């Protein structure tokens, strides 16, 4: 067997692993129940809150991640390495631990003051957005930084020599050139936020029609031994996630989203 065939075989085996897991769901799949569960008020709420929270969390992550990634990619400053390392905190700390950290934060004087003066995060929909934001912002910054690292500084240098201020050089040169990387990072951030469970349930809880996102709903159905309902929600989550990822990939391939 050639090296090429061997490597393709590995790729197929990864696909087979996930495809097998998805296919096994159909053992418990019941058509009428799927329609009934899908169009139930509780599920529709879960879909709505999941999509909305993931989209807001992604946008918030991008607002913070893009300038942070630019700073880390372009400038040498004190503490750069520490910041760069801490971006990986969501990867090394489990989501449940991150959620617990948020819960603890909102129980200290500063957190209590924020909740009293501005917004309630614990056991509210704001908590979902916050949990998803905290678990994704570091990853988003890391992905965007990698995209910006690939863009030669020379473009900005030339732009500045032609009279553009550093900010204008960023907006007119670096940002458009990073577009594909930012889109890819956004999609992955959104997908990660959509599937976020541990931090969300810890800080926002699992109240139906209030803070029950799709992953939380899956856990709740499983906890109450409703396997058929669990399967329906898993298939729903997979469909939404994969359709979005595949759609964006298609658009990028066709050039609609290319630089």
């Amino acid at each position, binding site marked *: 067997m050639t090296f090429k065939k061997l490597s393709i075989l590995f790729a197929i085996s990864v696909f087979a692993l996930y495809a097998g897991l998805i296919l096994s769901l159909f053992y418990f799949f019941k058509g009428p129940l799927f329609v009934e569960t899908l169009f139930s008020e509780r599920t529709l709420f879960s879909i709505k809150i999941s999509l909305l929270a993931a989209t807001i969390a992604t946008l918030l992550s991008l607002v913070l991640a893009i300038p942070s990634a630019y700073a880390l990619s372009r400038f040498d400053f004190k503490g750069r390495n520490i910041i760069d390392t801490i971006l990986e905190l969501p990867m090394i700390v489990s989501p449940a631990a991150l959620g617990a950290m948020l819960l603890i934060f909102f129980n200290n004087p500063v957190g209590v003051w924020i909740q009293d003066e501005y917004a309630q995060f614990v056991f509210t929909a704001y908590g979902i957005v916050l949990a998803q934001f905290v678990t994704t912002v570091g990853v988003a910054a890391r992905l965007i930084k990698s995209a910006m690292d690939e863009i*030669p500084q*020379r473009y900005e*240098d*030339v*732009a500045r020599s*032609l009279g*553009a201020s550093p900010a204008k050089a960023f907006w*007119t040169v670096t940002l458009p050139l990073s577009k594909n990387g930012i889109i890819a990072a956004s999609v992955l951030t959104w997908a990660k936020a959509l599937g976020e469970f541990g931090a969300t349930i810890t800080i926002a809880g699992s109240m139906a029609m209030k803070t029950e996102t799709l992953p939380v709903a899956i856990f709740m159905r499983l906890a109450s031994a409703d396997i058929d309902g669990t399967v329906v929600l898993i298939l729903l989550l997979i469909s939404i996630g994969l359709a979005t990822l595949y759609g964006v990939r298609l658009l990028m391939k066709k050039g609609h989203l290319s630089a």
Partner: protein
Amino acid sequence: MLEIRNISVQTKGFSLKDTSLTVQTGSCHVIVGPTGCGKTTLLEAVIGFRKIQNGRIILDGKDITNLPVHERGFSYVPQDLALFPHISIEENIFYGIRHSRNSGHKERYEAAREVAASLSINHLLKRKAVNLSGGERQRVALARALAPGHRYLLLDEPLSALHEGMKKEMWFLLKELQEKYRFTILMVSHDMEETFFLADRISIMIDGRIHQTGDKDEIYHSPSTRSAADFFGIKNIFKAEITGSNNDSISLFCPELAAKLTAPHSKLKTIEPGTPVSVGIRAEEVMILRQGYMEHAQDNALRGKITDVIEKGGSHTVLIKPEGAHRTVEIEVPNYAFRKLGLEKAQDAVVALRGESLFFVYETNFIN
């Protein structure tokens, strides 16, 4: 006029020390030196990409040392050209007009279109940079740099990726453009032919220091340091001792050639009998004579034997060892002269190291 006064730049593992340079308005000043000598660092410090530790940069009488890059008024063409790949050629060219503080000036757009026409790239305006050939990319980069109307153009070996034919075409074009738009060029290069073609004045930079600045003739015929002579590939550098002098000439004894030489008095500033010096001559400045023919009419004529002949395409390199010498003299002989003289290895020959062509070099130190 651009004045660089005693600037020092420290980068990781490299330092540019106490460097001074003056670029006259309207001239083409080329900094030439081997790869890694610091010429790009100097250029980047002038543009403002690199922080300088000390020294001043004065542009037309104004101290611009602490001005940000976008307010300095230098147009810059880097080695890789850095054409913006996400916008059209037209947008590339208009970038400096559109995004600088002087944006929106209609006449600048007109001038930029004229520059594009001068560079024969009007037909490329709607295309993107990725689809252009090497020569087209160079022209677009030049048009983009000239469009904002800056009076100083800083070039970092922008032609190094082109083949010889295209490179020469760009040299002529650059000369024409400079003549037409009257801008000042500060350029770095490691290409000798390019340097001597384009430059009005040349600075030789080696190991982070400028060894010599002068006009073409001075730099070509009289490199002032051993390192500069080595950079030019001059092999004919010989240790010598001053044995005497009068108002017209200096007498030297050169043990390596076992010969007495004379040079015009004006060639050396400090003349002390007994002073050790190094004397050199370019290979193409050495005359090779037929035995007995005009031999006595030439100064510094040395008899010897041809030790080697190397064919180089357009010319031949001939090595001659003078009688009693430890070293050979390298001579560059054009093909027609080589054929006419019928030179062969092991043949007796006479060479003349004409005093007018000799130069003296400092062994290690540099002149700023």
